């Protein structure tokens, strides 16, 4: 199971251009950091640092915006009585069935009209998994004991104060769970960033990594080095936060 990953790591430490497919060559020295150096040197078509920054930035911003906005909306639909609530709820639920892949074409036209092509705006605003976050947070807020909110209301707390002092602090665990899920999916996005990031400097990691497979092919060491570098953040996060990530996914499942 882990063999492909082991191969990836071993290959990354070989000299650029070496035949890492022959096991003999693979496990014998020399081992070098040359391929990594090659990958990290920024030039016109390879910018690992910038791509990583982009992926992280877009991931964090999208996650933050999604969680906050969904938390507000979930609170409203869950706890504030207003006319048309069922309609809004249905509308949001319906959105769960819209895959991003089926709207990339009109989205692209919209972004081009807005002049946002090749900008952070184009990477951030479309594609946030709002309905999913909404659903999970709403379920959580639904389950909060009514007395808690009643008590606060009796104390004179307005709607906003209730959200800020009660809902927000209590939802942290479910927000963390959803957040991880959303971050991973944002990190992994390939199709959309590929369309809107037209300058090398605006690409995200998934878009940039394939560029290391030069047309001349079979320099495997350098692409593998880029793969290792691209996976490092994710794998480190995983090993550190394994429990939380797994808990998060489990919770998303039990919705």
């Amino acid at each position, binding site marked *: 199971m882990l063999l492909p990953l082991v191969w990836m790591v071993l290959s990354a430490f070989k000299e650029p251009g070496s035949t890492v497919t022959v096991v003999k060559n693979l496990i014998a020295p020399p081992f070098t950091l040359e391929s990594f150096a090659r990958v990290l040197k920024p030039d016109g078509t390879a910018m690992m640092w910038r791509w990583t920054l982009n992926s992280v930035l877009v991931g964090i911003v999208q996650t933050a915006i999604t969680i906050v906005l969904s938390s507000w909306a979930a609170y409203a639909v869950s706890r504030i009585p207003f006319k048309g609530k069922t309609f809004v709820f249905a509308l949001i639920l319906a959105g769960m069935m819209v*895959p991003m892949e089926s709207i*990339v074409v009109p989205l692209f036209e919209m972004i081009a009209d807005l002049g946002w092509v090749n900008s952070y705006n184009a990477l951030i605003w479309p594609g946030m998994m709002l309905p999913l976050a909404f659903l999970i947070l709403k379920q959580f807020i639904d389950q909060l004991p009514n007395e808690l909110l009643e008590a606060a209301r009796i104390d004179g707390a307005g709607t906003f104060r209730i959200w800020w002092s009660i809902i927000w602090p209590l939802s942290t665990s479910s927000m963390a769970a959803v957040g991880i899920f959303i971050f991973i999916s944002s990190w992994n996005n390939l199709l959309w960033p590929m369309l809107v990031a037209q300058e090398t400097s605006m690409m995200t990691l*998934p878009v940039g990594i394939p560029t290391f497979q030069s047309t001349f092919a*079979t320099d495997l060491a350098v*692409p593998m080095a880029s793969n290792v570098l691209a996976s490092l953040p994710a794998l480190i996060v995983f090993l550190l936060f394994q429990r939380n990530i*797994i808990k998060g996914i489990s919770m998303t*499942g039990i919705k």
Partner: protein
Amino acid sequence: MKLTRLRSYKTLMAALIFLAPFMILYVWFWIYPIFKGFISSFNSGIFGGVQKFVGLDNYSFMISDPKFWSSFGNTIYFIVISTPAIVVLGLILALLVNMKLKGTTILRTVYFMPFMLSVSVMGSIWLFILQSRTGLISEITRSLGMKEISFLGSWEMGWMSILIATIWWTVGFNMILFLAGLQEIPEDIYEASDIDGAGGWKKFWYITMPSLKGVTALVIILQSISSFKLFGQTWLITKGGPGTTTTPLVHYIYQIAFRQWDMGYASAVSFVLFLTIAFISLIQFKFLMKD
């Protein structure tokens, strides 16, 4: 009376404030594009050029477009071969890990880890493994004097390769979902059945399986929807080939929109994709969540 009206006005305002940011973003970037795409599907013209209204032409073209049907068929084929495999494997792995034998937590980490990789990394690794003549497996078989297995050289093997790569990449996710479901089952039910003298298989069939119905339904739905959206693996590993035999629907939409610049037709096919996924989600929801 005035108080209640003021109160209800205030709550309405509050609701609006809390809902507005979400709804604005949501409607603007998720709902509106569907309608915009739907309208575009009635036009024809190159991106940036003049758009001509052509009514249902794009749709009638689609019906007779062999490439549409082949990519649609490819997508369905992938769903059919991958969903059972990934679901069952996920379940088996979860059962394994759940047995809490020595070292099973390591197993859990090992099986899940590939899911943390980006699709580009995964695609790159598997391409290098499966490539003809210069791939890892090819070199190994050659050095052992065996005949070369062509992984990407035919329609069937191409899909098999996509399947293998996808399973490796995502089975861990389903495993976690099943694990969560398994861990929800209370111990005493099993203990009670032990007292009744039930063997391992009976326990599995009569206790585990029914309790997992909800999770299984979820996994099947999630898996088939994500298979419908297949793009990254074929884009990176088989590049849709040989020819168009491993080109799924999303890939075909990309070709129409960004190689032919025919946004109208691309919107039409996208809309059909949307309807299909919506339809299947609805059916699966109703059917699998019957309880």
